[in-house]
């Protein structure tokens, strides 16, 4: 087995047994990037200087047996909308192509303290607005399982990097499914933690009330390891929750007998490809066989999730994007006649079509005379959706559903059909609206492309989700398959 095909916990075991060195690990992944990156295109910028320095320090920690954590010496790729001081944080936008942040995101600080190696910054849909990574203004990322297909998005670069063996783990951000959908398209594990579980400080905001940073890994055990590294209250993010953090790895091996799992009918509707529904139902059978009690239930307000999401997310996005005005940093158009002209030119030239579309939508939603009809009403429906979840969780411990209506689609196929793209977020959006933890794990293949299933949990109960996911994973081998990159 190639080193670059291994998981975090496998690499960790070999390090601790002295079978491998940090340098060998770093070289293996760096070599793999050299080999496949021109085809996959997962990274916007590599952070080789930083990673090499970190590798030296991590090697010292291992040789001195001092301060060794489960990820010391192991690479983690970082989505290019999370601040790593000294390396451009482009958000895959022309606007921030040359913007170098002077500070670290809290998650970056945490991972650095744990001794991770920041191997590079991964591509995304511009400002995380998109579901295919095709709105990136800087490069194209391809699905490692089939290079003609998109990796999903917006964390497409992170999911592709992990699936292609360029990094054993990566950070993504999820506003409406941006971790889970690409994880599903690329056959890896992705988790959006409970809102407030992981600090958002340093994550470039798309929609602050929905955004959450989370890990993308090759298996469930690694997901738990990353959750341990990322979780925790942060005074720099007032929305981060001051609640106890469990060890996410301890409960993994407990059985799932008696675990109650709900199947919301609204997320299995006919718009979902039959092959995907079948794969998820097969998983349901397997879990039932292991002693879980699976029941169908109805959550009537979920059908409004997409419009509610696109009102709230764009309203926030329009405001969040306003700071890119060419005054302080990033792109500034030349030849402006006055300040207004500078704003208009800078934003017209610096931002892409999808971002502009959402800014305009969001500005409209908040405009005088429309606020009550759109923003306020959407907030009310958001509450109804939350109530649906509260009710469901009085009956069940977890919810199970597909992640996406289809497997990965061909590059360019939906680029001109934003509405179709928006509607495909139906399964992932509800968890963001309700602030709940949700993850995607591989549950099959269709025509050589991965299929994922979604597990949604109660607030701050990631541990139960991980237990069910681990039990499922142990009796299947989808997660052991590796993409063969050809072409």
């Amino acid at each position, binding site marked *: 087995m190639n080193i670059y095909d291994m998981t975090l916990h496998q690499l960790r075991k070999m390090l601790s047994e002295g079978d491998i060195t940090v340098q060998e690990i770093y070289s293996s992944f760096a070599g793999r990037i050299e080999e496949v990156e021109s085809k996959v295109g997962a990274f916007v910028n590599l952070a080789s200087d930083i990673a090499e320095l970190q590798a030296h320090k991590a090697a010292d920690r291992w040789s001195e047996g001092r301060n060794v954590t489960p990820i010391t010496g192991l690479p983690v790729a970082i989505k290019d*909308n*999370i*601040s790593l001081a000294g390396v451009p*944080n482009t*958000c895959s936008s022309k606007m*921030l192509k040359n*913007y170098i*942040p*002077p*500070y670290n*995101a809290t998650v970056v600080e945490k991972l650095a303290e744990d001794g991770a190696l920041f191997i590079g910054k991964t591509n995304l849909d511009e400002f995380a607005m998109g579901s295919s990574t095709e709105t990136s203004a800087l490069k194209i990322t391809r699905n490692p399982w089939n290079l003609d297909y998109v990796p999903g998005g917006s964390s497409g670069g992170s999911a592709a990097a992990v699936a292609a063996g360029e990094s054993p783990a990566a950070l993504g951000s999820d506003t409406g499914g941006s971790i889970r959908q690409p994880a599903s398209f690329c056959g890896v594990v992705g988790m959006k933690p409970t809102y407030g579980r992981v600090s*958002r*400080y*340093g*994550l*470039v*905001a798309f*929609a*602050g*009330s929905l955004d959450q940073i989370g890990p993308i890994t090759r298996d469930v055990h690694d997901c738990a390891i990353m959750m341990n590294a990322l979780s925790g209250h942060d*005074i*720099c*993010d*007032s*929305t981060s929750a001051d609640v106890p953090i469990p060890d996410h790895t301890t409960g993994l091996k407990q059985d799932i007998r008696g675990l109650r799992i709900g199947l919301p009918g609204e997320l299995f509707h006919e718009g979902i490809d039959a092959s995907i529904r079948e794969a998820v139902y097969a998983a349901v059978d397997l879990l039932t066989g292991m002693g879980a009690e699976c029941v169908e239930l109805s959550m009537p307000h979920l059908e409004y999730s997409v419009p509610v999401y696109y009102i709230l997310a764009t*309203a*926030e996005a329009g*405001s969040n994007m*306003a*700071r890119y*005005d060419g*005054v*302080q*940093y990033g792109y500034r158009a030349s030849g402006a006649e006055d*300040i207004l002209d500078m*704003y208009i030119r800078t934003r017209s030239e610096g931002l892409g079509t999808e971002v502009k579309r959402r800014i305009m939508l969001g*500005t409209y939603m*908040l*405009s*005088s005379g429309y*606020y009550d009809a759109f*923003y306020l009403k959407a907030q009310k429906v958001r509450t109804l959706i939350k109530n649906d979840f509260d009710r469901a969780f009085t009956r069940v411990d977890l919810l199970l559903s597909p992640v996406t209506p289809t497997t990965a689609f061909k590059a360019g196929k939906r680029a001109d059909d934003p509405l179709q793209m928006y509607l495909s977020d139906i399964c992932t959006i509800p968890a963001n609206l309700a602030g709940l933890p949700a993850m995607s794990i591989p549950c099959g293949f269709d025509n050589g492309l991965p299929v994922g299933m979604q597990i949604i949990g109660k607030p701050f109960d990631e541990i139960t989700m991980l237990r069910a996911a681990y039990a499922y994973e142990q009796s299947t081998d989808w997660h052991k398959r590796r993409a063969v990159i050809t072409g």
Partner: protein
Amino acid sequence: MIMEYEVVIGMEIHAQLLTKSKLFCGCSTEFGAEPNSQCCPICLGFPGSLPMMNRKAVDHIITTALALNCTVARESIFARKNYFYPDLPKAYQISQDDQPLGEKGYLDIMDSSRRIRIRRIHLEEDAGKLVHTEGEPFSLVDYNRGGASLMEIVTEPDIRSAEEAAAYITELRSILRYIGVCDGNMEEGSLRCEPNISLRLRGAKEFGVKVELKNINSIRAVQRGVAYEVERQSQILNEGGTVIQETRRWDEANGVTISMRSKEEAHDYRYFPEADLVRVVVDNAWLNRMAAALPELPQARRERFIAAYGLPAYDAGVLTESKEIGDFFDKVAAISHDYKAVSNWIMGELMRLLNETGQSLEQTHMTPEVLAEIIALVDKGAINLKSAKEVFEESFRTGKAPSKIVADRGMTQISDEAALSGIIEDVIAANSKVAEDFQAGKEAALGFLVGQVMKETRGQANPAIVNKLLREKL
């Protein structure tokens, strides 16, 4: 025909709060630092940064709300006010819209004869400052002030004259200083006031077209600016014209208001809740703590000074304008019971010296004990008033004890008749012409002789006794 108009004024105050750090980050708020030296990713709005609430700023708002008789919101939320301007790094200001921290209060002015209702008090962040250089095709931005904590206090349109406007600001500034939330410095802009002024026919229900005034840097400017604007608007109306809704700038040097911009295009700020901050929940414990820490306010203190010390209203007003002076009066009055004398010393010598030196009382050597001792020395005739003032000034500057100054400088007043008799006889002998004038009925001649005696005694003779002896001997 000249119509009779009623003046309607509402006031918006922005007060920079006395917090060591800015509202959402740890940057210093000190005035006068090098441009852009007090900034960080948070107050510069760098991508990915988030605001952290400064609890001290919320404390200050609660205290102010209590002092202005407002209802304190138990749950308060923040909102984004969206607009593009280079001094606003995020292109939105974090402010409050619905559910401000304080609402529905009032402030009494003009010896409690007028009540000005407070509509709301809220917390928001300040913007940076644009620096324009004459002749350059660009502007520079200084973000040092950006993100500083700012309190907005809005009144109902209850103010009816320039005098009331000035009284409102005077009283409000005094309160803000008493409770320690704002230094009240209008010149440096830590207290900014924007009156909006309109006129309507007396008895009318509808409001007239209002004009907002900016660039008011002193209380005098409030009075002058508002008075000018009232005059300007009534002239327009009397000539059958219409007032334009606009913002006007007070030009202090020329004593006029100048049009800045008209408000034909209403701004749509697209307020919506700030998701990056959790709601502020003010529980009973927090509210009680703030209420318990509230000091005696100027109005209550004024009334107490009149009732308990028998001071004239004028004295009580002057002594309570600043908390520091009022506190000082209370401390001296606890030792020295000639309250009017205490008041005279503070309003006279103390305030004169504070003005001259530009110091705050705390920075000087003056203490309640020193002043009480000086008053006692005068009272028992040990020194005369003229010497006492010299002693006061030396103590003020050096901290030297009054009794020591009197002894060292040989200032003790001579009241001993035997000792003075000889000197007086010599003076009469040396000025026999003047003495004869007095005896011939020329009263004024006596003053000259007293002066001569004082001169002989280097000012230490007790003037009352000198007077008495002179009359006896002549």
